[in-house]
Structure formats: structure tokens, C-alpha cells
């Protein structure tokens, strides 16, 4: 949690949340979380609902009902409520059809990015698992600046931008194997940071 959040949490605790500042601080995490569930790239929408619509609804609800005063981690709370709201949209938009195993599937408007294909699509997918995945991504992005510069670069390019290893290696003038080493080292370091 950053220092800006301390001041924002103070407002939440006294029942006067500064929603605009909270949104300014965490909008990207909220939008990414909705977007990841709705498997968006630039312009994907589910039944006319975009990630921005989901976030707009969440903010509206927060405005009307306020935020729980006992929140400890604002970003985690906002990512969680946004993810759940997006899952809700996805499920409501589902046209029931069953695969060979009798499992309900959410219709695919477009082929999903491989990373999401198996996790997100099942209508019965564990909501908590999806929430955890969004929380993990946001925690990683928050901790990223604390990594050594080279590891930051490799994670940004190879993982967050999903650039091929050989391109990242060429940019750094190292071998693709060295890129793998740096990715693994960075991921281990982040895991240790997140455990603390």
C-alpha cells in the first residue's frame, strides 16, 4: 500500500471518502480488472457492456452506498469489487450451451487470448480464483518499480507486453536464455516481496 492510500483510507474511515482521488489513484487497476474478465483488448464488449461501463457502475454504487470503513487495502478492495461486477456482466450475458462434458460455456465472441482461454471461460469458473488472479497481477504491477532496473525491463517487455524472448534478448544484447534467467529471477524476487 502506498502513502497516498493512507490519506485516502483516513477519509474512508471517517465516512468522507474522496472518491475522485481514490479513483484517480486506482482507476487503472479497476479498468484492467474489468477488462481482463471481459477478455478485452481495445474494443471488446460483452453484450454492449465495456470495461468502462463496469467500472462506471462500480463507482456509482460506491457513491451511493459508500465504502466499508474497515478497508485495509483500497486497491485490493476495488479490484475485488470490480472483478466481481465484471464476472456478473459476463454471466448475465451467457447464452447457455453445453460442451461434450455437459459443462456450461460462456459464448466466445472472439477467440480468447490463450492465457485466459481455460480459466475465464467456464461459466462455473471459481470466482475467487479469478479475483485472486486480478489481485496478483495488480500486486505485481505495484511492486515492479522495486525490482532492479534490468529485471523490471525484462518483466515489462517479456511478460506485460508479451514480446517474444528473442526480441527482448536482442534489445538487451543478451541471449534468449539470459532473458529467461532474468524473468525467473524477477518472478522469484516478486514472489518473495508479495509473501512479506
Amino acid at each position, binding site marked *: 500500500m502506498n502513502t497516498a492510500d493512507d490519506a485516502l483510507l483516513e477519509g474512508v474511515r471517517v465516512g468522507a471518502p474522496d472518491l475522485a482521488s481514490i479513483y484517480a489513484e486506482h482507476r487503472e487497476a479497476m479498468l484492467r480488472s474489468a477488462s*481482463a474478465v471481459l477478455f478485452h483488448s481495445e474494443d471488446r464488449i460483452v453484450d454492449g457492456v465495456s470495461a468502462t461501463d463496469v467500472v462506471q457502475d462500480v463507482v456509482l454504487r460506491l457513491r451511493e452506498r459508500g465504502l466499508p470503513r474497515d478497508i485495509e487495502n483500497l486497491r485490493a478492495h476495488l479490484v475485488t469489487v470490480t472483478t466481481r461486477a465484471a464476472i456478473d456482466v459476463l454471466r448475465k450475458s451467457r447464452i447457455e450451451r453445453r460442451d461434450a462434458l455437459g459443462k456450461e460455456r460462456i459464448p466466445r465472441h472472439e477467440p480468447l487470448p490463450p492465457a485466459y482461454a481455460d480459466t475465464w471461460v467456464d461459466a462455473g469458473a471459481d470466482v475467487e480464483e479469478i479475483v485472486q488472479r486480478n489481485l496478483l497481477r495488480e500486486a505485481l504491477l505495484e511492486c515492479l518499480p522495486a525490482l532492479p532496473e534490468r529485471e523490471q525491463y525484462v518483466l515489462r517487455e517479456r511478460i506485460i507486453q508479451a514480446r517474444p524472448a528473442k526480441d527482448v534478448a536482442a534489445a538487451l544484447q543478451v541471449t534468449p536464455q539470459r532473458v529467461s534467467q532474468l524473468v525467473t529471477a524477477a518472478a522469484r524476487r516478486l514472489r518473495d516481496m508479495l509473501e512479506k
Partner: protein
Amino acid sequence: MEDSVNDRLEGIVDAYLLALERGQTPPSLHKLRETELREAQEVIRLLEAAWNAAALAIPALEDDPVAAELGLVAPRAPVMLNGVAIKVARARQGLSIGDVSRRLIAEGHPTSIRWLFGVEQGSSTPVDATLAEAISRMLGVSLTDITAVAATRKSDSLVAFLRSPRYAEIIRDWAVRLGLAADTLRARYSPLLMAAPRRDRGDADEDEWARLLIALLESGKL
């Protein structure tokens, strides 16, 4: 020993990322020892969660309707349309006023033939920026081509102030003092600042905007 564990983990991470890239089945981890397995799973879970996160859509703050609603960005200033320029551009495209009006309505802009006719007769009509862009697109000209001289001037200093920590701090303090939600206060006072006479001078600095905001808050002007 440690080296070979690292090598194995790197190899697995590599294979996993390749599978993600190609949409293939991830490699099996069943040959790993228990401690290695746990570590590999944790590392992969982390990387998988962040994989291609850059592709997740985030609109720019200026294009974010929620940010606008919360007063984080100044609403876009209206554009002053030049009627003659519109009339000429429309004639070049071989479109009637009715054609343009119908197309605008089809795009979701609530206009009418009468309104458009009025715009063409005027030398400088203030129009919502989105609508002005739609008109320029439809007529195949740039926005500048149909904008009247003495177009709206942006107040960069006000925008900077509305995004500043100082603004947030004043709003927070007064929200507590008045027992109102900060965003309610923000929604009420941002438009007042935008409409303030100082805006036209364009030379107000952060201190001046802060003084004006506090004066408005103190006068209880809502």
C-alpha cells in the same frame, strides 16, 4: 545442485511462456520434486496473471467518463463552429442539410435540420466538441477548417490545479468540515472554478486557484 534447480525452473518458465504465446497446453510439472513444484507453481501463477497485461484496455484519463463525472478532468470546452465554412464543406461533399442531420442523428447526436440550418447562418456557434468532431468527419474536413476564429481557449493552469494534490487536499479538508462526501464537493465546485472569471485571463497559478476555491467554499456558494 542449486544451479540445476534453477536451470530446471528456468526451463519450465520458458516452456510455460512459450505455451502461453502459442496457445498450447502448458508443460507438465509432475516430474518436479515437491519443493520445486511449489516454487514453480507460484512463479508461473505470478507470470501468468501478468501475461500480456498491456493489452488490457485503459482509456486515457481525458476519455474516461468516470473521471469526467468525478471532476478529475475538465469537461471538454465547446467548439465554436463557423457557419459559412460548414456550408461550403457540405456543398463540396454534395450533401444536403437533411443528409447531414440524418447522419448525425444516426450516430446518436440529437440534432435537427432546423438546428443545422441555424448553425450555417451563424458566424460562431458553440457546439459540444464531440458533435463538432462528428460534423467535421462527416464533411471530410479537419475540425480547424470549420472552427471559428477566437475559438475557446483552454485553461491549462486550471486543469493542472484540478489534478493537483493541493486541490485534493483542500477538497478533503472541507469535506470533513462540511460533513459531505469529497466527491460531492468536487462535483459541485469544479464547475464553479471552470466558470470563474479568472479562467479567461488564463494566467492564474495554483495559489490563485486555491485561494479562489477556498473563497467559494467559505462563501458556501453551491
